[in-house]
């Protein structure tokens, strides 16, 4: 029997590897495209006034987004303060106590569902829970919405990171007569430290640019926030408003704000890579 000529196989191989390579390239190109345009268009908007001054009416020029920057930092912080302890404890339950129990399965499943939940729905939920009873938009509702988005990420990362800690370490600590909570806090957490910090930073990065949940909750404001009980200025919604406006100076600010958020998320991501790298060494 004569072997089949290799032309067909070679051609198929070429087609598959070329299309796979091209698809990968397209992904990278899009990322770079967005980044480069944001940098080019946004860089001009970033100056000292952008960080320190309040917004100006369209056409006036100058001014900055100090209020939105502060607002976004505060909202992210509120969300982290709410979600971090809950998420850590839930992760501890899943990894250390839940085991194969049905309750653990349910909460793991709900965390996964919550993780894939469209953020706008979370926003509507916070709207119904906080904004409607209070009768006005406020920072608390925004912090709550962001916290709900963070919670499953923190929970699942905590569980995964704690599960990476070998049981031999738990046994060694228990064998010294340590109670379970001391084993977890002093030994297991320490062993999983890098992973836990990474998970938290990634969760922060994930919510810091969220817009949809804030539209229904914190809304936005042209003033410096004085309390979380009022509409709270923030970068994502500011980008939305300014980018949609017909005024070139506002559009310019939207580019600046985009660059700031993109840069912030990138910095957090690089920081997590650095922390994980340190651990491996």
């Amino acid at each position: 029997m004569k072997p089949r000529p290799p032309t067909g196989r070679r051609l198929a191989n070429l087609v598959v590897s070329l299309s796979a390579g091209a698809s990968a390239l397209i992904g990278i190109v899009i990322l770079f495209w967005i980044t480069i345009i944001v940098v080019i268009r946004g860089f001009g908007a970033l100056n000292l006034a952008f960080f320190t001054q309040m917004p100006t009416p369209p056409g006036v020029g100058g001014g900055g987004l100090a209020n939105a920057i502060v607002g976004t930092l505060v909202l992210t912080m509120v969300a982290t303060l709410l979600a971090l302890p809950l998420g850590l404890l839930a992760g501890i339950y899943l990894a250390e106590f839940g085991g194969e129990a049905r309750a653990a399965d349910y909460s793991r499943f709900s965390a996964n569902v919550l993780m894939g939940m469209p953020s706008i729905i979370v926003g509507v939920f916070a709207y119904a829970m906080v904004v409607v009873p209070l009768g006005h938009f406020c920072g608390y509702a925004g912090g709550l919405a962001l916290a709900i988005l963070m919670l499953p990420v923190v929970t699942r990362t905590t569980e995964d990171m704690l599960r990476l800690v070998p049981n031999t370490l738990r046994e060694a600590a228990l064998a010294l007569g340590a109670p379970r909570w001391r084993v977890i806090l002093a030994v297991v957490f320490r062993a999983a430290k890098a992973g836990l910090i990474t998970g938290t930073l990634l969760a922060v990065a994930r919510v810091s640019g969220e817009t949809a949940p804030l539209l229904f909750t914190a809304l936005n404001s042209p003033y410096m926030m004085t309390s979380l009980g009022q509409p709270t200025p923030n970068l994502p919604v500011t980008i939305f408003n300014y980018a949609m406006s017909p005024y070139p100076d506002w559009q310019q600010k939207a580019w600046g704000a985009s660059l700031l958020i993109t840069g912030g998320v990138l910095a957090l991501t690089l920081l997590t890579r650095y922390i994980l790298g340190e651990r491996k060494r």
Partner: protein
Amino acid sequence: MKSLSATLALPITAGLDETKATEDTLTATLGDLKIIASQLNFFYGDQQALFDNNLEIARNRVTAIIGPSGCGKSTHIRIYNRIYELYHDQRASGQIILDGQNILDPSYDVMELRRKVGMIFQKPTPFPMSVFDNVAYGLKMHYRLRRGELADRVEEALSRAAIWDEVKDVLRNPGTALSGGQQQRLCIARALAVEPEVLLMDEPTSAIDPIASSRIEKLINDLRSTYTIVIVTHNLQQAARVSDFTAFFYQGHIVEFGPTQKIFTNPVNEQTEAYITGRFG
């Protein structure tokens, strides 16, 4: 010594005629008993791993547990400090009398049990903290100590584990940075620090090099007068070198138990003899 005859009257035993004589001499040689395990059964889920184990551990002596892989040696000693309770599907029945009290009684304080009965594992398990803190961890948990006392007790424990001279200048370095043999001696120091009465050693030298192993054997020799030591080992020469008494396990049964010298030179049971002479296992 009813339980001992039960031990030797297992289905797979041979040489029952000699049993009676052995029993009387053994009672005399064992002397003061620290631990009496009787009718121990152990289950991994539905799978029974130990069958009616009866064993007497002499005070301030070294008892070796030998037998082929998977015969239940580690499982047996993991009941002595109830470390198996970490896993929900593992279950033990029977009695282990330590100084007159049944430690398997649920009302027995498991933390105090583990302070009295220390454990050294196959793989060195230094905690992710400094050499000093590794030893101080258990101390701080069980004793209220002033800072100076703590340092003294840490030094004492490290000296007793024959590692002080090697680590006294690196007490602040991470315990994980030590060599494998040093890590194992650090773990021994950590266990000694809380002033246990019994030391369980689960193949303590199988993961470290021969020179480090011989150091640990020497250490066991130094400790034998103060502590009751139970050592599980795959290394028959090691059992012969360090132990006063030896128990031979096979398929979850204790096949033969007696003075080490007798087990190694003149075993009663055919299976023991076959194992000792290297015909199986």
